[in-house]
């Protein structure tokens, strides 16, 4: 493993284009993460087509660099504007902004960047150690195991995202409906094509992702009034903080990193949830919980360590099972497929060198992220002032290039509008988008493996319970559904007060 990783570093450092793309990717990610209203996923969607012409390792390294940069960039606007650039930095506002108001913005930024680096590195190390081991385990999976893992992922994401489990499940089924358009797996029967030749090839994953995440975001921003926020001034010398600020933070860092990693592994919930959970645990277990929210290092460290640690966590199911952990890893899955690679247990055998190159690039991107943040902070803050009337139309142009370049046909561009409108409508209706995406991605896997499994078992569905792994995942799926249903519909205690 170590030898492969060293080879990965060798590949990265021998070609200057690799380093250049990591630097560009990280910077782009930071900017997208820092700009409120734009997310890492939008940045990834926009830059995915640019990687077409690159070697697979270089292109995927750039995409993962955007992911790392984007997850960290949100801290800048959280601290200087009191607006989280991404949902992953919500909890950073709680202590980052009061610290900035006190005139310690430089210290808050320094601590947040430091925590982000630590969180990312810890999770990447665990990802590098765990992924090949898990891949070796999942290589023994048959159709029933894949079927039950898919069911588990779909039910879990539907249960954990949004307020209503029914809405979550409906969203997943809605995504699955779109995935059935085109030719069916196994026997290639035409489905829902309504005589259209274009629909025979179905909806392209990238058009769906870009439409749902980037175009809907642009439309949403276009439809809402924009107000200029005041950016706080800051001074940062060296790292921005002293060693005394880190005193007693060791356990907070490790605990938050593990929370981020664990939550990142679960499908659908990543940094946006982990930062709040890590913050609240840090607060409740602190000796001075009353100080949280007044601008103390503990809160910033907990939030930023955990959101960045979810990067490594979300990559684990993607690499070992081909199941994306969040929206960003769904785009990365698209990136892998674009470069002719199928994430899953065989990835380490078929494209081992590229995978380790990506691992090495991710470590490098983390260090680049720290450098860009410490050295180029002034420039990034200036970009925060770029008005939306210039930025948004440019994003649309770049997204449309990506959609057109998929198959050189305008049909995929119409898909952008369709899924952009669907994404916007879903966000207005409070229907979560992640289950839709996962449903769209996993439908083929679900159908192929269920049909194969039934063929092997002569139509006997109960065969799924004869296999321990598949039975376990199905039980877990039922338990997660039942637990969420209980939480939502349990009888609440009515408190009556006599007047």
């Amino acid at each position: 493993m170590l030898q492969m990783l060293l080879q990965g570093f060798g590949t990265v450092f021998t070609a200057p284009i690799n380093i250049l793309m990591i630097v560009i990717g990280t910077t782009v990610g930071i900017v997208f993460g820092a700009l409120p209203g734009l997310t890492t996923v939008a940045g990834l969607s926009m830059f995915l087509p640019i990687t077409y012409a690159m070697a697979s390792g270089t292109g995927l390294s750039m995409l993962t660099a955007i992911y790392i940069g984007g997850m960290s960039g949100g801290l800048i606007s959280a601290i200087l504007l009191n607006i989280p650039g991404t949902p992953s930095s919500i909890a950073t506002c709680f202590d980052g902004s009061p610290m900035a108001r006190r005139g310690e913005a430089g210290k808050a930024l320094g601590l947040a960047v430091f925590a982000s680096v630590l969180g990312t590195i810890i999770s990447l190390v665990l990802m590098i150690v765990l992924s090949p081991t898990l891949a070796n385990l999942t290589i023994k999976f048959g159709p029933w195991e894949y079927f039950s893992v898919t069911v588990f992922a779909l039910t879990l994401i539907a249960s954990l995202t949004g307020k209503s489990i029914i809405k979550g499940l409906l969203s997943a089924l809605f995504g699955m409906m779109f995935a059935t358009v085109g030719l069916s797996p196994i026997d290639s029967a035409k489905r829902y094509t309504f005589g259209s030749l274009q629909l025979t090839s179905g909806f392209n994953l990238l058009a769906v992702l870009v439409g749902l995440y980037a175009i809907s975001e642009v439309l949403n921003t276009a439809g809402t009034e924009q107000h200029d926020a005041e950016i706080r001034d800051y001074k940062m010398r060296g790292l921005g903080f002293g060693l005394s600020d880190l005193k007693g933070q060791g356990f907070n860092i490790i605990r938050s990193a593990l929370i981020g990693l664990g939550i990142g592994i679960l499908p659908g919930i990543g940094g946006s949830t982990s930062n709040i959970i890590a913050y609240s645990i840090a607060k409740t277990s602190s000796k001075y919980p009353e100080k949280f929210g007044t601008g103390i290092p503990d809160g910033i460290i907990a939030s930023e360590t955990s959101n960045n640690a979810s990067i490594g966590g979300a990559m684990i199911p993607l690499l070992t099972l081909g199941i994306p952990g969040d929206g960003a890893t769904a785009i990365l899955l698209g990136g892998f497929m674009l470069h002719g690679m199928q994430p899953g247990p065989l990835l380490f055998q078929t494209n081992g060198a590229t995978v380790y190159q990506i691992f090495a690039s991710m470590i490098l991107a983390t260090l680049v992220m720290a450098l860009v943040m410490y050295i180029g902070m002034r420039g990034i803050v200036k970009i925060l002032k770029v008005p939306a009337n210039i930025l948004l139309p440019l994003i649309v142009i770049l997204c449309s290039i990506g959609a057109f370049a998929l198959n050189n046909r305008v049909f995929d561009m119409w898909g952008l509008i369709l899924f952009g409108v669907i994404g916007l409508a879903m966000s207005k209706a409070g229907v979560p988008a992640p289950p839709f995406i996962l449903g769209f991605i996993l439908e083929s896997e679900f159908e192929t493996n269920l049909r194969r499994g039934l063929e092997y078992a002569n139509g006997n569905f109960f065969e799924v319970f004869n296999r321990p792994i598949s039975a376990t995942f199905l039980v877990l799926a039922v338990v997660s559904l039942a637990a969420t249903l209980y939480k939502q519909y349990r009888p609440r205690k009515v408190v009556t007060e006599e007047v």
Partner: protein
Amino acid sequence: MNKATKKELGIGVFFALLSIFYIVASRSISTFTPFGNRGLDSRSIPAMIGWLSMALSVTYIVTTLISARRQLASQQNSLESTAEVCDPDNVICIEDPSGAKRVKVLEVLPTKLLLSLIFLFFYFFFYQRAGFILSSVGYLIAQSFLLTEKDKRKRWALFLILFSIVSTLIIYFVFTKYFTLFLPKGILG
């Protein structure tokens, strides 16, 4: 029935109608089982998705109605008056003969959103016909003007036009020359 309940019911009805359409359309899917049906065919999964979606939509409608009824009952039982918080810019108040104040929310047409969609539609329509450069310049000018505040448009006009032309040309040359992607030339080709 309040606005939020109507919205939630609308979501349930939309998914129910979609499920009906999806189930009906699944009947026209051809199946191929030369060795006998030992499991599922190409129609089975869509039918399963459709029926499951239908069941969930109906459940959602029913649970929404039940919670709306409970809410209504608790409101009637409550002696205190309730108020809905809404955007003060879009609200007018009407004095009720009974003395209570009724609030009516004025619906604001999301003009910028609709126009953005129309611009996007025309952009994609002319993408291949007029070519990338012309359609993109047109789209960039139109969309950026739309997003600029009305009173600032005159001041920004020249900059926005120049920015649209220059950025489109840069994007075109970077993508076609360096990333070797094909972009339609249209009438300029």
